[in-house]
């Protein structure tokens, strides 16, 4: 086509420039700003001081942070793994269903997406209410003490995280399973594999791209969770997101908030970009034709 020509270049710039400029101004510059402010001192009145300092970043060594960072990583990883565990059979069933059943199942998975996510979290508060039906049933069964609360602990945070992100895991898994050739499973069984082994050895590797995507789309947003631990988490369920929000909305310590954000940014964006660079070069080599 006209890729190489001058007119082609002009068209390319015309198409590229709007989104490029927009994202540079409203995404790159703000992110760099966060990184920069991490090295500024805070002022007691809640502003950003002049000059440069390592104090803020070094303050991250304070023992209170590793606890939160570790909890954030652990809860996110647990969420991702649980979502994969439950998402896989669902995606498998969907991919093997008739076209009509597929559509219905897909809709059933997507519709909760379209109810406000805050409202769904709030519904869990009602479900887990210490005077609610669930709790009373548990107490009656002797599973929990009569005055105990099901909420405000790490378990509740994990439960609601899984609830929120499970559809995000199902969709890419389903997309991958849908493209998978189930004849391969039959072939493996024909070659003497037990059905479970056949699925493990053929189906799982066959949808590895989908698995990776599902893992990323659950794990990464979970790292930034803020609302869920805020609403159902207790004093011991704080995650990195809550700390950032606290620094911004309560302590008004922007450099500290920036340092924490930078930590999260580096943890998320750097591996992402590296993966992207690798994949783009593998998948889209050079030109078309």
């Amino acid at each position, binding site marked *: *086509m006209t890729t190489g*020509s001058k007119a082609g270049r002009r068209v390319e710039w015309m198409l590229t420039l709007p989104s490029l400029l927009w994202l540079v101004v409203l995404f790159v510059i703000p992110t760099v700003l966060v990184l920069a402010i991490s090295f500024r001192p805070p002022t007691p009145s809640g502003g950003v001081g002049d000059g440069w300092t390592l104090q803020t970043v070094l303050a991250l060594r304070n023992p209170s942070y590793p606890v939160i960072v570790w909890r954030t990583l652990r809860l996110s990883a647990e969420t991702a793994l649980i979502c994969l565990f439950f998402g896989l059979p669902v995606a498998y069933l969907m991919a093997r269903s008739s076209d009509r059943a597929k559509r219905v199942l897909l809709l059933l998975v997507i519709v909760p997406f379209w109810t406000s996510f805050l409202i769904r979290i709030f519904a869990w508060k009602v479900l887990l209410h210490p005077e609610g039906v669930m709790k009373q049933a548990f107490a009656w069964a002797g599973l929990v003490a009569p005055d105990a609360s099901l909420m405000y602990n790490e378990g509740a945070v994990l439960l609601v995280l899984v609830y929120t992100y499970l559809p995000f895991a199902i969709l890419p898994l389903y997309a991958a399973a849908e493209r998978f050739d189930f004849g391969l499973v039959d072939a493996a069984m024909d070659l003497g594999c037990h059905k479970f082994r056949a699925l493990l050895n053929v189906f799982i590797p066959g949808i590895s791209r989908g698995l990776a995507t599902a893992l990323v789309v659950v794990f990464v947003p979970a790292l930034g969770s803020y609302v869920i631990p805020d609403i159902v988490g207790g004093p011991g369920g704080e995650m990195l997101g809550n700390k950032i929000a606290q620094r911004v909305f309560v302590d008004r310590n922007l450099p500290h908030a920036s340092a924490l954000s930078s930590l999260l940014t580096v943890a998320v964006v750097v591996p992402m970009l590296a993966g992207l660079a690798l994949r783009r070069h593998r998948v889209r080599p*050079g*030109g078309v*034709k």
Partner: protein
Amino acid sequence: MGTDTGQGFLRFEGVSKAFDGVKAVDGVTLSVRKGEIFSLLGPSGCGKTTLLRICAGLETPDAGRVLLDGRDITELPPHERPVNTVFQNYALFPHLSLWENIAFGLRVKGLPRQRIRDEVDAMLGLIQMTDQAHKKPAQISGGQKQRVAIARALVNRPQVLLLDEPLAALDLKLRQKMLVELDDIHDEVGLTFLYVTHDQGEAMGLSDRIAVMNNGVVEQVGTPGEIYETPGNSFTAAFIGDTNFFEGVVKGAAGDGYSVVGVDGFPCEVVCFNDRPRKAGDQVHLSIRPERFVVSLQPAEAGPLHNQVEGIVEEMIYLGAQTRYRILAGAHRLSVLRQHSRFLLDEKPPSWKDRVWVRWHADDGYMLERFRDSDRGLLPLSEQA
């Protein structure tokens, strides 16, 4: 060699095009006469499609020019050229009805509504699809799509119609039927067709003239008969039809227009027709088409221009119209076609493991220059046993 230097309606002059440093088209000069069906024939990757796309304006050549009716159109963008293309997979617009697909070019030109309606309806009549006009491309068959694609191009009255392997997506039966239809359409509209194909059968059946292309260059231009009977080189001989190749050395002359050739692995020397000045010691390829051999269970009497070798039937494949034999003769395996003619049924057909005699007349062989090394992979050189 073999390039056409005469004046023509559509002319390529020294056209070259490279992709990522690889030459797809290398200094091609060709001319197409007005009103003829001209085919570009060659294996995939030979540059024929690139040449067609250069003609359509979809690629810009790195060097050379394209002239249409004496006018240089090299720099003209595709939408300003008086040529139209029938694409390989037809490229019908899936969101438009067949009627709208055909009307597309006229609408873009901004013709009056009534005129568009008339022309599209006439074109639908020509391809006999008037009753399907409202359908979407997804709802019709491959053959119908092809007809619509042709109609969509023809309705613009191009000076040249470019066809990029238009039959490749069809099955064998349909292909044969469409070939006839294409020919009919050509007769009816009397346009110049530039036809790209890798299928020699299509090219032979349809074309007035063929340009055989390989590695971005034109190997030979000629009528189908010329190309089959007197291939310009080993590549053409191998690509057009099936043949047996033997590497040989000219030993000397054998009367007017014949030479004696020594072939390694043959027990005897071979007499062969020679139309070029060759002297003893020249390296040549000897090409003999499988249908030119005669195979029988008894040796025949030798004549002055007869060749005969003895061999063993290694393999036989029944093809319906004929039988293909693979016969080990000396150090060579010969591919031989035997027609199932009534005249030959007197004799019991040779069978597996039979000792047979393979004969051919000196005029049935053809001597060619040796091919370039780069072509080696393309050639079905007879196996050395």
